[in-house]
Each structure stands twice: as C-alpha cells, then as structure tokens.
C-alpha cells in the first residue's frame, strides 16, 4: 500500500471530490497561485483551474460568510483557513449563519460547507495562531467537528466531510502534515462519528483526539515496556458526532480513563467525555476519569516552554501512571 503524508492525503481527498462533484470548490488565502500556505493545495490550481481553486483576500468574515451563502444555493465550498485560529474573525458567519440557518428556516435550507485548516500549537507562533477550538465548535448544535490524527483518517474523513450536507469544521495539524502512513489509492470513506481503537489494551483507556493520539501511542509503548501496563488507545476522530459507544465499551473493559487533548482544560472535549462516562459508566470505574490538556494559559511563545505547555509523551505517561495508582 502506498505510504503518503497527511498533507498528500488531504490533497488527494479534495482532488477526488473536486473531480467527482462540479459543485465542490476550494477557497482560501493563498490556496491557488501560492500553492497553499502549508502546501496542502499544491498543484491544484494548475490541475483544476481558477474556477475550482480560488484565492481569497484576507477577509475571513467576508469569504467564510460568502461560502455559507454559496452553500445555501447548492455549492459545496471547502474553505481553508490559513490557521484555524482565524475562525474567530468569522465567528458570526460560522456560528450564527452556518450553524443556525437550517434550524431557523425550519429545515428549508442546508449548508454543506467544510471549513478546514490547522488548529494546533507547538510551532512557536504564539497565542494568536495556536488555538484549538474543537470544543467551542462542537458546543454549537448544527455544526460537526472532525479532528483527524493520521493520514489515512484525514483522507477518508475529508471525503465524508465534503459530501456531508451539514457544516463541518475540519481541524488539521501543521505538525502532522508531514507525517505519513499507509493510505490506499483511490476511493474510501471514513464515516464521521466512528472512533478508532488504535491499540487494544485492558488496564487503562487513553482516549483523545488529534495529534495527542500519536503521543498517546508512544506513551502506551512506554507503559508496556516499563510497567507491563496494557493501555488501550482510542482516537475519537470526530468530536460531533461522537462515538459514545466505543468510549463506554473501552472504559467498561479497562475501568480507568485518561483523556488527552491539546485544548485548554475548561469545558474541553475531555470534560464532556468525563461527564458522559460518569453518567453512563460510573459503576465500572476504579478511579476518577483523569484529563491531560495543555497548561491552562494562552499558548506561550518561548519554544522550550511551549513544549512543556502541550501534552507530551512524558506527560501522558505520567498522567496514565497517576490514573492507575
């Protein structure tokens, strides 16, 4: 099977969908002529031309809102935010318009838009460029939220997101863009809302999403090597819809749960998952659900300190041991 990067997987997904459906259009700052700030769309302008691959001005409220309007009339715009952090500039368009239009029209209008871009810290770009808004996005009924942790999922989820008739926020990760794994050629879909058990185990469930999953897998190796602990690692892949069943099944099996994510702790996805577990699997627990997040402050610039602020293999390993105490 070919091994391709997360970046190439996203490009393949968008390209296949652009070829499949004439209503799909990719728009964003620098996506066309410049080949993408992170080169996700490299070569796509040359291949698909300026009608399908569209450079926008730096105007997030304007062009995201425009995409929402175009989606209402049947296009399937894929809107790239150069950094997902810039979603805040388009907040009203996303959460008042995209999220609510179906509801407020009593189901008369759909909004099949994908808003995508990298949502992560760890690259020393400071607080303004390092937001991880998955819980903020998922807070809004009407919105779907996807956070792929690897190239295979990135492709399959992106194709599903583009075909979805509801607005999808698709949170990528610049640190993962260059990471590769086996990805089959051609058509396959990963459905939204299906978690993936990345590693089976019996002693503790390490559940999470995004790049934290890659770190959790390494931490699980360490736990096995050093303590013969069998950690199960569950990647949610999609935050809303949420695979509650897989979460509960895992926790019922292991009786312990550590949730890992790059977000800040207050009202995070992990907080929601901990609440679900306490509601629906309390009797199975041998310990309180523990969460590991970024340290609760704006993203620090200082490179060595930012490493410490984010989840790391070491921090996950320690937190897992604490949960097992």
């Amino acid at each position, binding site marked *: 099977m070919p091994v391709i990067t997360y970046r190439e997987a996203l490009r393949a997904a968008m390209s296949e969908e652009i070829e499949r459906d004439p209503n799909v259009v990719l728009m964003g700052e620098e996506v066309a002529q410049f080949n993408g700030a992170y080169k996700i769309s490299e070569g796509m302008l040359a291949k698909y031309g300026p009608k399908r691959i569209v450079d*926008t001005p730096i105007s997030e409220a304007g062009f995201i809102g425009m995409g929402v309007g175009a989606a209402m009339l049947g296009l399937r715009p894929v809107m790239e935010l150069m950094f997902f952090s810039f979603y805040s500039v388009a907040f009203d368009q996303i959460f008042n318009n995209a999220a609510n239009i179906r509801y407020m029209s009593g189901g008369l209008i759909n909004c099949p838009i994908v808003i995508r871009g990298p949502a992560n810290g760890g690259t020393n770009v400071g607080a303004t460029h390092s937001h991880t808004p998955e819980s903020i996005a998922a807070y809004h009924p009407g919105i*779907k939220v996807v956070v792929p942790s690897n190239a295979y999922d990135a492709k399959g989820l992106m194709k599903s997101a583009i075909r979805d008739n509801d607005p999808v926020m698709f949170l990528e990760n610049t640190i993962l863009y260059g990471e590769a794994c086996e990805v089959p050629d051609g058509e396959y879909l990963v459905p939204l809302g299906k978690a993936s058990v990345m590693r089976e185990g019996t002693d503790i469930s390490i559940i999470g999403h995004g790049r934290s999953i890659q770190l959790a897998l390494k931490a699980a190796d360490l736990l096995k090597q050093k303590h013969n602990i069998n950690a199960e690692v569950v990647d949610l892949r999609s935050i809303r819809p949420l695979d*509650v069943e897989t979460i509960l099944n895992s926790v019922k099996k292991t009786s312990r749960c550590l949730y890992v994510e790059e977000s800040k702790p207050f009202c995070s996805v992990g907080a929601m998952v901990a609440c679900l577990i306490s509601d629906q699997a309390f009797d199975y627990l041998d310990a309180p659900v523990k969460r590991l997040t970024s340290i609760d402050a704006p993203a620090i610039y200082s490179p060595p300190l930012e490493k410490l602020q984010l989840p790391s293999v070491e921090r996950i390993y320690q937190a897992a041991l604490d949960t097992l105490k």
Partner: protein
Amino acid sequence: MLFKPQVSLVFDEVTLNNGIFASNYYFKLKAFPVTKKPSSTKKPEVTNLGYDARQAPINIKLGQDEKIALYRDMVRIRRFEERCLRSYQQGKIGGFLHLYIGQESIAVGCASVMGKDDHIITAYRDHGHALAVGMGMNEMMAENYGKITGCSKGKGGSMHYFDPSRNFWGGHGIVGGQIPLGTGLAYALKYKGLKGACMAFMGDGSVNQGAVHESYNLAALWSLPVVFIIENNGYSMGTSQERSSAGPSLAQRAEGYGMNWAIIEDGHDVLAVRDKVGQALKLAHDKSLPSVLEIRTYRYRGHSVADPDTTYRDKAEIEAYKSTKDPLSVFQLSLLAEQTLTDELIQKIDESARAEAETSAQFADASPYPSIEDIKKDVYWEIDNPADRKSVGALFFD
C-alpha cells in the same frame, strides 16, 4: 444636554488648513451629540429635477393590472403589519416586532423587478420582503406566533422568515451578517452560469459593519452579480445616520471599491425604486457587476414596536413624512389621477387585505405549537434524513 460639545473635535476648514491638527481630519467634524438630521446643504447626488419615474422604460410598459398589483402588495404589507401590531399588543407575539410600515415601496418595487434567477436576502425587518416575493400571510403570522405552521415551523420568529422556493433567503438577526451570505448567493449564481443576481438588503446602521465592507470588496473584486441595497430610514434604532456614519453618503462608500452606486431620493415612490433597482439588476445580469444603492425612506413605528420613539425624533417629523411621502398615499393618488384606481377599488383592496390579515391571525391562533420533539428537528440534515445518514455516533447530548 448631557455632553458638552468637545471643543477639541470641532474644527473648521481654517484650522485644518493651518495644519495645526493632524492631517487625518479631512472632514469637517461636528460637535457631538448631534441631534439634527443630515444637513440639507449636501448636494443630492441624484437630482430629481425633471425626473418622472412613470416615464422610465421599465414603468411605461406597466399595465393597469400590474400597477394595481404593486399598490395591492403595499397595502397588504401595511395591513398585515398593523394586524401583527395588534397581536403583539395582545401578547400573542414574543420578542421583537420590527415593522416595515413606511418602507413598503422598497420591497414591493424591488420584488417586482425580480426575474426567475434573482434572489433576495435581508435583515430582521423582513415582513415586507417576504410578502412581496409571494409568501403567505398565514405562514408568516403563524411564525410570529411561534406555531408549527409558521414558515420556519416556529423556530425563527418574525426576524427569521425564509422561503428558498421563492428565492427568499431570510430574515437575519445580526446587523450586517446577511451581507456576506447575499454575496455568496451571487457567487453561486455566477458559478452556476445563471443569469441572475442577488439583492442584499441592509439598513443604514449596518453599513459600519466590517462584514459589509468585506462583502463589498469581494463582490467588486470578483464582479459578482449582487445589488447591495441600503434602506436608509435615517435611524438605526435611536441613532441617526449623522451620529453613526462618517463620510458624505452611505452609498458613496462604494467608490472605494470601484463599484457603481446611486442614491434614490424618492424611496417612497415605488416606480422610482423599480427604475433604479431595475437598472442595477440589469448591470448585474448583463455585465455581472455589483452596485450599491442607497434608498431614502422612513419608518413610522419604533425600531421594534415596544421601543420608545421619542428620544431621537419628534412626532412632527413622522407626521411631516407621512403627510408628504407616504408610499401608499403617493402611489394611490397618482393611480387615481390616471384613473387606474377608483375609490371603490381602493376600498376593495383595503378590505381584502384586512380580511387576509385577520384570517392569518385566526389561522395562527388556531395552529398548534411545535412539540417538544420538534426542538431537536431541523438541526442536522442527517438526523432529519435518517435513511441517508452516513455518519454514526451521537449528534445530540443530554
């Protein structure tokens, strides 16, 4: 007076020319608070001298029935809204009720020049546009009452009417937030190769929103077939144009984006609206060019009907407008003069509009509210179409 004029902000040309103050004060700034209407010394950009909208090509071909239909639509809007007001006072309508009374000529004029692929989007003062594109009073009144038979099943309310089957895309509650959407509708029309345009309506208060300017730029940059229509009724809530918007006029801001613009002084004249808007639509259809139209108009009621109406204007101002420029009266007089309308017909139209409005109130009254199960419907397309659902997992949480 609460504030003293801030002396440091009062310049005259002489001071400016002396270069004593920073050169970023290009305009003659005024002391605030400012309570006057925009000064009349401003040169009107569109002169009315010798202009008779009845002679405009788009109007000259209007048949009697079509003129009567324009009149009837304006009357229907007014009677509907008067009935809404009664229902509001009876406590049957919740939240806000933004009445369009006084502005009817704009929605009716604009809708009357729409073609098959022309679309409309507006703000929360949306009853007029909705009726003008052909929505029914029943579904509208029921929406106001929060009933399941409402156009949005009681989920949107008075500010959020929609009817995509009539190319009407809302009804939007965030000031200026609908303008990027309208730009996107125009984008989709152009993308699909349809010869249509989007009329994106906003109030005079929305022109200071960033999203509006971003939309102007996108529309001009990409030559989108959109007509931005500013319904300038002089006030955003209790704030006059003069107290909110810098620059010589609202429409003229289009110049910064290289867009065509015009001011329609006679916004009360449905035929003038048709003429100017028709030209802007033609520009959009034929050349895919956007434009900004500022249509001068006036609202008679409070911003929302429960709002006090005396802090920023006086009754005399309202009466003066009503007595000289009421869109219904002005058109009625002109149609009477040309014998298109008769007193009997006027009365018949009025009675039937009242009856239609009354029926809608009864319909709304008799309709059921949504059920508690309905609260979670129309959130996700996938949940409402379970047979076609592709995703799995929970989309709702307790």
